[in-house]
């Protein structure tokens, strides 16, 4: 109860948690149930207005918009999770190595690698990868994941370096503990908060990037539903059914807003020094 009251003091955390929880719940629910089959086409019933059997109406193929939106949430969450997994799985060890062996060749090499990846924003990488292997979910995941590797490497390096100057780390060094030992038992656990906060931000960035890539046709391919692809379809016929161009955008905005607020809330919770600054 006391813990719950403590969490309630962070409105960003609460609102972000509720929105993100909602996103994950919808994505999970759509695996088991949607109001209708998202792939079921009914050309005679296309552009049906909201209400009755179709709460959000139907699209240009007569598919139920709400069901498509729910199934597309699964696509966004899946791409986001894998892209963040790739980023954290490769970027965190790279950042840890760079910070632990600061100023050595490994640090320099990783620094240059990060510079190189940052020269190719995710969309640009996706263009290159699409030219190579064609469009698809894998293209989107690899492009976003690669960019995430650089982000996580830089954040981890910075966070670990900030921890490395603290007294307990110096004490461990004085006791003769090995670098790798200190990195794994002291540095990484104490930098985990910053990495976790970054993970929520990169999850949000991945959802935005996936939507953008699918809008361009570089991301997930039909019949797999995607909010970006829904927006593309809706734009071509927005004179006939303008609301179809609104719903997917609202879904993306709520998902990204939720994750960003969750990140802000987690940062406030994990770094209490920031709370007085925010409240003052």
């Amino acid at each position, binding site marked *: 109860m006391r813990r719950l009251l403590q969490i309630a003091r962070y409105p960003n955390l609460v609102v972000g948690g509720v929105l993100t929880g909602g996103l994950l719940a919808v994505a999970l629910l759509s695996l088991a149930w949607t109001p209708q089959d998202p792939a079921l086409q009914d050309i005679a019933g296309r552009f049906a207005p909201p209400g009755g059997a179709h709460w959000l109406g139907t699209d240009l193929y007569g598919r139920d918009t709400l069901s498509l939106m729910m199934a597309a949430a699964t696509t966004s969450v899946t791409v986001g999770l894998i892209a963040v997994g790739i980023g954290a799985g490769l970027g965190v060890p790279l950042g840890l190595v760079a910070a632990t062996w600061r100023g050595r060749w490994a640090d320099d090499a990783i620094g240059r690698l990060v510079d190189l990846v940052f020269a190719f*924003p995710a969309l640009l990488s996706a263009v290159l990868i699409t030219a190579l292997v064609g469009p698809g979910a894998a293209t989107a995941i690899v492009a976003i994941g690669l960019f995430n590797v650089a982000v996580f490497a830089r954040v981890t390096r910075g966070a670990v370096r900030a921890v490395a100057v603290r007294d307990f780390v110096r004490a461990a060094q004085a006791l003769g503990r090995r670098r790798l030992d200190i990195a794994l038992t002291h540095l990484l656990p104490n930098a985990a908060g910053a990495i976790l906060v970054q993970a929520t931000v990169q999850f949000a960035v991945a959802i935005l990037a996936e939507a953008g890539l699918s809008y361009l046709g570089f991301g997930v391919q039909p019949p797999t539903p995607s909010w970006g692809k829904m927006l593309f379809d809706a734009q071509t016929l927005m004179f006939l059914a303008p609301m179809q161009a609104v719903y997917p955008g609202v879904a993306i905005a709520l998902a990204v807003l939720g994750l960003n607020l969750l990140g802000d809330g987690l940062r406030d919770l994990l770094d209490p020094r920031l709370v007085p600054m925010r409240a003052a």
Partner: protein
Amino acid sequence: MTSFLARRVSVCLVTLWAASVVVFAAMTALPGDPALVMLGTEASPETLAALRRELGLDRPVVERYAAWVGGLLTGDLGVSHAYDVAVGALIADRLAVTVPLAVLAMGLAVAVAVPLGVLAADRRGRFADYGVLGFAQLGVAVPGFWIGILLILVFAVELGWFPAGGFPGWQDQAAAALSALVLPALALALPEAAILARVTRAALLETLAEDFVRTARAKGLGRRAVLVRHVLRNALVPMVTIGGLQFAFLIAGAIIIESVFTLPGLGRLVVQAIGQRDLVVVQSVVVLLAALVIAVNLLVDLAAAAIDPRPRLADR
């Protein structure tokens, strides 16, 4: 400053070289015959052989890379197989849309973000501050291309104030061309403005806590005067740094926004080139955009070092 400049420029040159290797290697590693990929299975053996010769596929990889880099440096980027014109001329033509779009968007973002950031810092903890923070959260969360679609819906379809897409060119109709860039620039600018407003607010609040601000106030300077004359100038470094970094995302964002508004810019060129399997164009545009990102980052570093020499001196 000279050694700092030399160090930063050399790092950027290495990154640029590495980026060129990545792009070239990616295109070289293309599975199958690039000529077949570009022309399709219906092309005659003679046409395929001619394109292979033109692409230099009969030469060793290192020689091809050297020739390609030489071409990049001299502006000879080859010929687009889809448009049958020199890639350099094609890119220059498209830059006439993308550069004004990016500059207009960045200008709009700064014009909106800085006053909002100053307002939020000045009214910290009050309604205006929370309003700006709310705008920043929403602005970052809403995808730019969706804003573009909504802007078309409201200002082009409903009100008819601006065109829904297309670009008439600068030659005869400069006013119409500028009008065609207004909505895309707004769509690109909003997420940037949201981030910049937040950074401006944070930088100003941090600077407001410095001793020299207290001294200026103690000497009798008004709150507004201190904020504008002293605090804003000292908060410039993070604002310039983040603004510059955001420029890279703005360029990437232009790839989508140009597709939303069917603008004949560099972004749309590369998207179409993929559809047309025009790999020479893809290769050149991607390396050009990467070079642009690297150059902007260098300029940001140099500007930050010129504004505040402390980190540069501490690096020695």
